[in-house]
């Protein structure tokens, strides 16, 4: 990857993270899981999907679905930065007169399908990918899934079925940020080793640093067309970009005070670490 391209991607990702941080007040959002997959979503939109506001209805478009759903602030930020929606519209987050809320939904232009309940969109993606094959299309279906989401049986049911139907146009990306809600995945229901699990289901597997654009480029260029679906396990950091919340089990869903948002934006730009006092939503 050229330095220029990498710089451009990093700048875009930084702006997306600014949006995510601004969405984490006045009701808050799932900030940690949004920051962890921001680089993957930015990379997909800039380098892989080839979507523009004019091609969102094309039968031949590539699809991106967010199965883990609560990472949608990263998608909102990307859509706003790339002209799919007005940046100003993000101020409507959680307001009843708009449809921008904690989980994705189809009423937002650019969002293919809604999610919220975990373990659903792998199977929806299988349906889309199957139809593309049926029509002889070359487009691909990318679905971002959570690591905690892999607790759901329907994910592994989907893995079996996708392989059975030889859907090599289906690519899952696991946002491996090592946490689910307020606990580390490996402390609860360990999912490692992950590569041999997918391999045993017949999938092509690649594991990369999900914050390294050069590594993401290699991974997305690697995707084999060999009659098997592929998974890219993206090792990420929950809360990436904000050292004060990175890898912290208690910073899952947060509703920060407005003054904390200002501090966090400074922290994102490396100016000073925020001093946070806001509560987090504890579900365990």
């Amino acid at each position, binding site marked *: 990857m050229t330095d220029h391209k990498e710089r451009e991607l990093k700048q875009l990702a930084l702006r997306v993270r600014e949006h995510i941080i601004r969405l984490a007040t006045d009701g808050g959002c799932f900030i940690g899981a949004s920051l962890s997959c921001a680089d993957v979503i930015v990379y997909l939109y800039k380098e892989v999907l080839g979507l523009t506001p004019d091609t969102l209805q094309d*039968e031949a478009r590539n699809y991106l679905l967010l199965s883990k759903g609560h990472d949608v602030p990263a998608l909102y930020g990307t859509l706003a930065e790339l002209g799919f929606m007005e940046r100003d519209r993000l101020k409507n987050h959680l307001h009843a007169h708009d449809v921008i809320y904690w989980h994705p939904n*189809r009423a937002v232009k650019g969002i*293919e*399908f*809604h999610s*919220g*309940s975990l*373990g*659903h*969109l*792998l*199977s*929806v*993606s*299988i*349906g*889309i*990918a*199957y*139809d*593309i*094959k*049926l*029509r002889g299309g070359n487009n691909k279906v990318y679905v971002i899934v959570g690591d905690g989401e892999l607790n759901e*049986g*329907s994910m592994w*049911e*989907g893995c*079996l*079925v996708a392989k*059975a*139907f030889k859907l090599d146009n289906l690519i899952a990306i696991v946002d491996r940020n090592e946490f689910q809600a307020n606990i580390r995945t490996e402390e609860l229901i360990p999912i490692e080793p992950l590569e041999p699990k997918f391999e045993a289901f017949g999938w092509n597997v690649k594991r990369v640093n999900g914050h390294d654009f050069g590594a993401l480029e290699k991974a997305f260029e690697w995707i084999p067309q060999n009659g098997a679906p592929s998974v890219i396990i993206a090792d990420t950091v929950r809360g990436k970009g904000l050292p004060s919340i990175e890898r912290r089990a208690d910073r899952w869903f947060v509703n920060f005070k407005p003054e904390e948002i200002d501090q966090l934006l400074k922290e994102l730009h490396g100016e000073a670490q925020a001093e946070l006092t806001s509560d987090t939503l504890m579900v365990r």
Partner: protein
Amino acid sequence: MTYEDVLKEISQTSDKLVVMTAENRAAIRTLPPHLGKRFIDVGIAEQTMMGMAAGLALRGRVPITHALATFLVFRAYEFIRDDVAIPNLPVKMVGGVPGFLSDANGPTHQAIEDVALMRGLPNVLVFCPSDAEELAEGIKTLADYPAPCYIRHNPHPASVKHKPFEIGKAETLSEGNDVAILVYGFLLREAVKAKDILEAKGKSVRLVNIRMPKPIDEEAVLSAVKECRLVVTLEDHFLTGGLYSIVAELCLKHKTVGNVLPIALEHKWFKPALLDRVLEYEGFTGKQLAEKILTRL
């Protein structure tokens, strides 16, 4: 024309039709050679089938999904709710051996709360054909209809001559004012026998085949309530949430009180046995139904 013939015919004129199953081919055994890759068997994976059906519908297909009613509705319910009902995708969901038709399988296979659950979902219609003929006629109309629909599969031969199928319309098979029997699905067969017995005893019987619990034919129900001395709701379903509940809801809505005798399964799963023995044991044969009704007339 059988259910399978109808699907074959539709598949020839429309490339939208996709037939899916979670490894339950009883109702669609002859279809694979006709549909090719538009016949999709996902294996024993009801959740994946319903999510996949949603994905296919997003691409413009009309998936008709098949599994035993219990596994389709109960195991995959959240997938139906989230991925089909919320986005209002035109997926048809055909549940095998619903109600008493699971005969000797036991309670795991008894879909007798399916109508309650499926009619409770916004956007989802519910069709309970009384026999194979009505199933085939209904699917012709419903396959094209732009809404999700749950269908209680029924392969039994017809015991009446049917009127044309219309969405949301009940079929009144006989006129009368002493008693109205409102029924859906397979039990129409027993209702017809009950009607003959009651008529032989000089009672006039209005026999109403409800066909679609949702959208319910309000006019047919309310006129029965208003005009008949007794209204019987007959169903192989729990008392809660099925036809009796529908009639009660309608009466309240229209500030009407009826003299209603519910015949349903009252908060228990039924005795597993061969179908005719189930009917006898649970008191749902035509003769037993007529006796129950006569005590109230």
